[in-house]
């Protein structure tokens, strides 16, 4: 038995975790760059699956769900994992028995959010002020299917809320940095290669 010795004894990840598995890969002029979602956003690196409108909507939604999610790179995080085969995706949606490809779910959900926002007051979600954005998210947050908004045209609103909220929590609190900001020690045995 190859027992791994004590905390942080292994710097790298073994056979199943190729280098950079925790980082996001970007291509720039033929070179592959590895970045955390936060670094990718700061550097303005491109997206693989989501278009500019979807990115803007997801960032606005993420920031409404949990302040800090935009800066932490929620759009790059989600985009990267939507570009992976579903078996390699690390998004919370994997737990919800929703059939892959997960991009279909996100794309339909983001479109539904904009459609719902537009029906409400003529503006897509990213153009709403903070108060209206909060009202819209509150309207889609109820787990009761009977409470789902009538103008929502997409995957179940409450599941879309649940999934994207979990993504926001992942990028803000699911990292060593985010955990330690709460005053909790991360205490890794093996540190992931990046502080997501």
């Amino acid at each position, binding site marked *: 038995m190859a*027992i791994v010795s004590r905390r942080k004894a292994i710097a790298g990840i073994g*056979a199943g975790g190729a280098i950079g598995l925790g980082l996001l890969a970007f291509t720039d002029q033929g070179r592959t760059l590895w970045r955390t979602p936060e670094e990718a956003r700061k550097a303005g690196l491109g997206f693989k699956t989501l278009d500019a409108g979807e990115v803007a909507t997801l960032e606005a939604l993420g920031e409404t769900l949990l302040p800090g999610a935009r800066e932490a790179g929620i759009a790059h995080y989600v985009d990267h994992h939507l570009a992976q085969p*579903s078996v390699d995706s690390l998004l919370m949606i994997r737990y919800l028995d929703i059939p892959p490809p997960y991009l279909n779910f996100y794309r339909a959900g983001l479109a539904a959010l904009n459609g719902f926002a537009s029906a409400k007051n003529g503006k897509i979600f990213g153009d709403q002020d903070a108060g209206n954005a909060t009202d819209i998210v509150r309207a889609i947050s109820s787990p009761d299917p009977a409470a789902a908004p009538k103008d929502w045209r997409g995957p179940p609103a409450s599941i879309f809320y649940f999934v994207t909220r979990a993504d926001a929590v992942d990028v803000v609190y*699911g990292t060593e940095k985010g955990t330690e900001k709460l005053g909790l020690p991360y205490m890794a045995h093996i540190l*992931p290669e990046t502080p997501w």
Partner: protein
Amino acid sequence: MVNKSADFVIVGAGAAGSLYAAILAKAGKSVIMLDAGPGWILGDLASSQIWARRLKWGGAPVEFRGNHHGFGHNLNTGWGLGGAALHHYATWPRMHVEAFATRKLYERGQDWPIGYDDLRPFYDRIQADVGISGDAQAEIWRPEGAPYPLPPMKRFAQGRLLAAGFEKLGHPTAPLPVGIVSQDYKGRPACQNDGWCDAGCPIGSLANPLATYQAEAAAAGADIRANATVKRILPASKNRAAGVVFTDAKQQERRLEAGTVILATSAIQNPRLMLASACPEWPNGAGNAADQVGRNFMLDSLALVYGLFDAETEPHMGVSAGQVTNRVRYAGDRPPGTPFGSYQWQVAPSMKPSDIFGMAISRADLFGSELSAFVTRASHHIASMVAMIGALPDPTNRVVLSDKRDHFGVPLARVEHKVDDATMTLWSHCKDEGVAVMKAAGATESWTGPYNAGHLIGGTLMGDDPATSVTDSFGRVHGIDNLVLAGSGLFPTSGGISPTYTLLAVAMRSVGVLLR
């Protein structure tokens, strides 16, 4: 197609498959164990709730039809070597004596073909092999057996607070028995209580298969292959299996002949494979002459209860399973007015800020600045507990084949499952009881979570009567001499406890018969 043969081919490298592989290989048998997922090693188990998702199901989707949305198949199963036990929490209680005979005692469910005394020596042997930490004397509900080889796990503020709440209401508690070593044991180091169990325990304190029986199997010469997807069982005749067909890591289809085929995948994938193996010799699927394969599929129900305290609760410390337990038996010795059934409280599990059992998700209604404020407070003041509520068999709850197929051409599994009214009554009772405990413990706020299900049980029940079961008490499929099933799919009742320890005991009892 390449032919190869072995004495035993085991499909699924989780807890039960690994135990079979270890004992058979050590007895000098040739063993090939195939698993559809990746070949994890302990060094892959990074401490991250995000990365932990790699260890959860990544195979063919499972369809669901039912009256609830709390199935969580992908969360409750594993992907790759170690199976679900690679990320399981190692709550290892023994099944109650009554759970083996609910039909006889209470005219409900279906009786096991064996009783507690049949499994007792194997429970004892496994705990000596692997190490269980707990206090047998404090567990007044525990059936007779050898005391635990290790003292209980360390208790932290959350555990102390909630244990006091139970005691205040007159409900006895005990340290939660876990397959985690509280002290160095047989080369495995003591747990560090950092709550990373769900991400897999790379130091081997928790008894995941890579640190226990699978390691023994490999050392004894078992041939363990990852990324090997078994597609069907091959017949030799109506009464015998010839082997299996699988696709290997290079996407080549291969045929493997075996003296005995052991199916040790999940309670869903075992019946799926049997049903997908329909052929002229087995027109309804392997072992399905009586239309029992897939029937009586069960899910334990989970009642989640949370509280906030003024005191520091140290919620990040400990293990994912919990620190304390309280267990209530079936109807026999229950307080008047308590609904029928069995459940186990797992009290004070360690919590991370994120993920499916994390702090943020406990208040899924909150978002924005309210969510930030809640997580900040919860990080030091939340406490939680969960009741695992047992299930009884119902033949209409079942695993069937879908019309859709995976990319190997194998039909998908579809689960048809309804939670019955009695279970929902008990679920409501547990939530009320949990809130009362939180209040008694001094919580300033307490609340409950939505319905969730966990633990996949049944679908291929063991029994004496081939008309109402799929295997005998040793997991041997009725009517097919050399096809054996392993895992929690064999259980005729779930008992409201975590199944891993019991499925290991059943497997250890059964493997001896194969060596006779």
